[in-house]
């Protein structure tokens, strides 16, 4: 990184420009969907387009007012993804006669409302550190909720839903955020303790038994989700989140190795014991075995998804020209297959590239963050997004077994949309704190107002993590 300092700029105008570009992509896609189905410019198109524009512009204005120095790329990327998702869901609605796009738009509205509230009211992510143990309790509650009688419901074998009366909700989606907050709070407080103690075997510094506590807790949560909720995807996600965070907190590879061993043991036992895991693994390895293909809960869905992707080939059939509706759950679990079919490898690569950028901007916020809590939280949340993409797209392309996770921002599903927008709100706040020239929040370190950014020294970095204020 360069040592040359430039005056920090808010970059909100850049954001506005990129935002317009993102809206053109999303709404343009929706227009193409209509054109190809001979339903261009119907009322759906205008409602969806205008609603999306209004919603993201509200976020933009709130950022101008409350988080001026937030990363200018994050919001446009997420807007583009959300817009493309809406277009594809709308396109599948036309094929199946559903109205999922309207529901998705409704949830986008709720999600953005929550984002605005978080940015406006929270203002600084460090406030969350106070809620470390409350977050733990919230996580536990959210995870146990679907298992309760009456409110909990089972969909397609997984018990991860609650019935809110007017809609259904997956509390686990929110739990990944509360868990991230808990881990970030716990690890930033206790990392010195964890770091100092422990035996050394060869190059590996092993943790003390008592420090293994949180790791075991995370492992148990993951296994619990797998066993009681029968949700392999979330189980992987929770454990991956924790591993990344403890690695960042301690910089010890030994934790990662212990974690991977625990996953291996847990995975093997799960494969032996639980038919839903066995099914997933069989559907992955023996996808083209006629017996597995024709079995209920077999590989039919993944194979159909592969056919969709293959028929898209390099350039895709064009929006509205393929048959993505032939794949079950095309607008949620398998939306990547639907997009790959109609936009081709080129279009899908562009979408994946958006995720790469989003994750990178999140990591960038972590690097720039001035407090360990912010660093841990931003890394954890960014890595969650990456891991979620990996598990979903890897599952759809048969790189790994298919699990029931949703593709962030694209897939139809209110809980997932809300949770991922919440992650975006937190990343925006952390990036704002990271890039802000003077600290105004409840800061742990502060500079006098109007102080120009200083040259950094090695000592600074060692002491505080980083004080980067370099503009991208």
């Amino acid at each position, binding site marked *: 990184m360069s040592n040359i300092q430039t005056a920090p700029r808010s970059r909100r105008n850049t954001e506005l420009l990129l935002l317009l570009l993102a809206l053109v992509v999303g709404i343009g896609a929706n227009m193409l969907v209509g054109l190809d189905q001979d339903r261009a410019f119907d009322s759906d198109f205008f409602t969806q387009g205008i609603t999306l524009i209004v919603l993201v512009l509200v976020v933009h204005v709130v950022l101008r007012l409350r988080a001026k120095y937030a990363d200018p790329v994050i919001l446009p990327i997420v807007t583009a993804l959300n817009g493309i998702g809406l277009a594809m869901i709308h396109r599948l609605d036309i094929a199946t006669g559903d109205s999922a796009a309207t529901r998705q738009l409704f949830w986008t509205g709720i999600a953005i409302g929550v984002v605005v509230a978080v940015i406006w009211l929270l203002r600084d992510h460090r406030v969350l550190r106070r809620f470390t143990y409350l977050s733990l309790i919230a996580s536990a509650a959210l995870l146990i909720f679907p298992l309760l009688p009456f409110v909990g419901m089972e969909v397609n074998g997984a018990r991860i839903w609650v019935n809110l009366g007017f809609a259904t909700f997956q509390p686990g989606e929110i739990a990944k955020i509360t868990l991230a907050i808990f881990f970030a709070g716990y690890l930033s407080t206790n990392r010195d303790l964890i770091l100092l103690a422990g035996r050394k075997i060869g190059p590996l510094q092993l943790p003390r038994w008592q420090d293994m506590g949180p790791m075991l807790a995370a492992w148990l949560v993951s296994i619990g989700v797998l066993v009681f909720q029968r949700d392999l995807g979330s189980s992987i996600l929770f454990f991956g989140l924790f591993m990344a965070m403890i690695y*960042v907190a301690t910089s010890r590879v030994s934790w990662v190795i212990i974690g991977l061993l625990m996953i291996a043991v847990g995975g093997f036992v799960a494969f032996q014991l639980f038919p839903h895991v066995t099914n997933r693994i069989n559907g992955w390895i023996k996808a083209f075995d006629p017996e597995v293909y024709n079995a209920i809960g077999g590989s039919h869905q993944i194979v159909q998804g592969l056919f969709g992707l293959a028929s898209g080939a390099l350039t895709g059939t064009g929006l509205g020209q393929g048959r993505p509706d032939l794949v079950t759950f095309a607008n949620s679990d398998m939306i990547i297959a639907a997009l*790959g079919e109609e936009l081709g490898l080129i279009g899908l*690569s562009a979408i994946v590239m958006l995720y790469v950028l989003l994750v*990178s901007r999140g990591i960038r916020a972590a690097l720039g963050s001035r407090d360990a809590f912010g660093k841990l939280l931003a890394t954890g949340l960014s890595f969650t997004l990456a891991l979620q993409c990996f598990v979903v797209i890897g599952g759809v392309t048969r790189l790994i077994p298919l699990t029931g996770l949703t593709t962030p921002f694209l897939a139809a599903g209110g809980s997932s949309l809300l949770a991922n927008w919440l992650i975006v709100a937190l990343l925006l706040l952390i990036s704002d704190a990271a890039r802000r020239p003077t600290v105004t929040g409840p800061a742990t370190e502060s500079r006098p107002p109007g102080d120009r950014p200083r040259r950094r020294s090695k000592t600074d970095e060692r002491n505080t993590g980083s004080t980067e204020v370099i503009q991208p």
Partner: protein
Amino acid sequence: MNQAIRNTWIVALAMFALLFGSLTVVQFFEAENLNANPWNSRTIYKDFDKNRGAILVDGDPIAESVPSDDEFAYQRVYNEPELYAPITGFYSLVYGSTQMESAMNAQLSGSGDEFFYEQIVQMFSGGQVEGASVELTLDAELQQLAWDLMPEGVKGSIVVMEPDTGNILAMVSKPSFDPNEVAGHNTEKVTENMAGLEEVPGLSPFINAANESLLAPGSVFKLVVAAAALESGKYDADSELENPPTLKLPGTNVELPNYVNGGCAARTTADFSFALEQSCNTPFAQIAMDLGEDAIAEQTAKFGYGESYQIPTHVTASRFPTGMSDDLLAQSAIGQYDVRVTPLQVAMTSAAIANDGVLMKPNLVRTVRAPDLRVMDSPKPEELQRSLSADNAKLIQDWMVNVVDRGIGGRAAIPGVEVAGKTGTAELMAGEEGNNSWFTGFAPADDPQAVVSVVFEDVDVATGSSLASSSAKQLLEAVLNK
């Protein structure tokens, strides 16, 4: 801590790199295999939404795609279905495509390499590539006549072909079926219909009997033996052939008799002309044993046996058995034992003789036309090989004229025209009553316009032979009157 964050980022990037890799594998490297997977209904859906090109005969569509208001954009419709079913085949959701629909699929669906430009345009315009239409070499009137000449309830095939080009003018088989029954989009109904078709005796809806059924040729095979004899140089037009009424086959107690109703008994020695005119068995059995299996086999190969052809629909290879003892060779010489030919192969044999020894590749496609009426392809006549010398071909032509003039093929005679021909009657497997009745020939003998091959399967000798010869006569007459 920052180093650990960067490392985490690198892990995330590595995961994304794996995703790019697996997407590329699925959408690029494996795409072709996945698209060809039989479970992939998407390919079918895509194809069935296309405006597929028509198959035309004399400018009229015998198969065409018409707009449909069900789940697919187009419905394949067959006009005069039974008449052309063995040629067009069908284009079915459930049973795939057969015959011309399958052989010319790249052109009809517009997916072939010759559509590269259209495909590029379509990629950017979002429109559909329209398929090319395929005009066949068939003649609608001759096709109808051939159909009418075959009585209902009889199993058989007729092929009419131009000997100098290989173009097929008529190709008819009975029993036939209605391809519309299996081209519907209601898969349940289609499955039911197919079950019904498979119950029809003698019908196999997947094959074109004229190209793909293998039958015992009987005496029409004597043309091949005569050609082998002349080509060997051991025999000529004046050769004197032994013509005993019966021939005891070596190593057996079987007596091979001459054709009972024929005039063979009149002479105990014969020349080729007489032996063919009366279709005497014993001279040809002796020639075969004299020449040996290899010489006969070589001659069959020169006439095109042992090869399957794409014309562009599939033609099954006709076969001459190998490794026979002399008694079996003697039976093979008169087209019995395990000699098996397609009706088209019999026409090809006559065509080579008619075309002064040169065998042309049979062909069903006249032109392939793009939707803008531009001619994309029009197959040129293609010479396969020389089957026999021109001189020997002329000799056999003359003998075949005698078969119709003076011999047992008299019913094929057309007043004022020299018709060349050869009859055949093949006994079916032991225990069955019927025979395969054959006639093959061409006219006019000095400048042949068309060869015919007619076969009626499993009929009694009298009706069969009269039917075959008189059908051939009417077909040749129709060609000459054009």
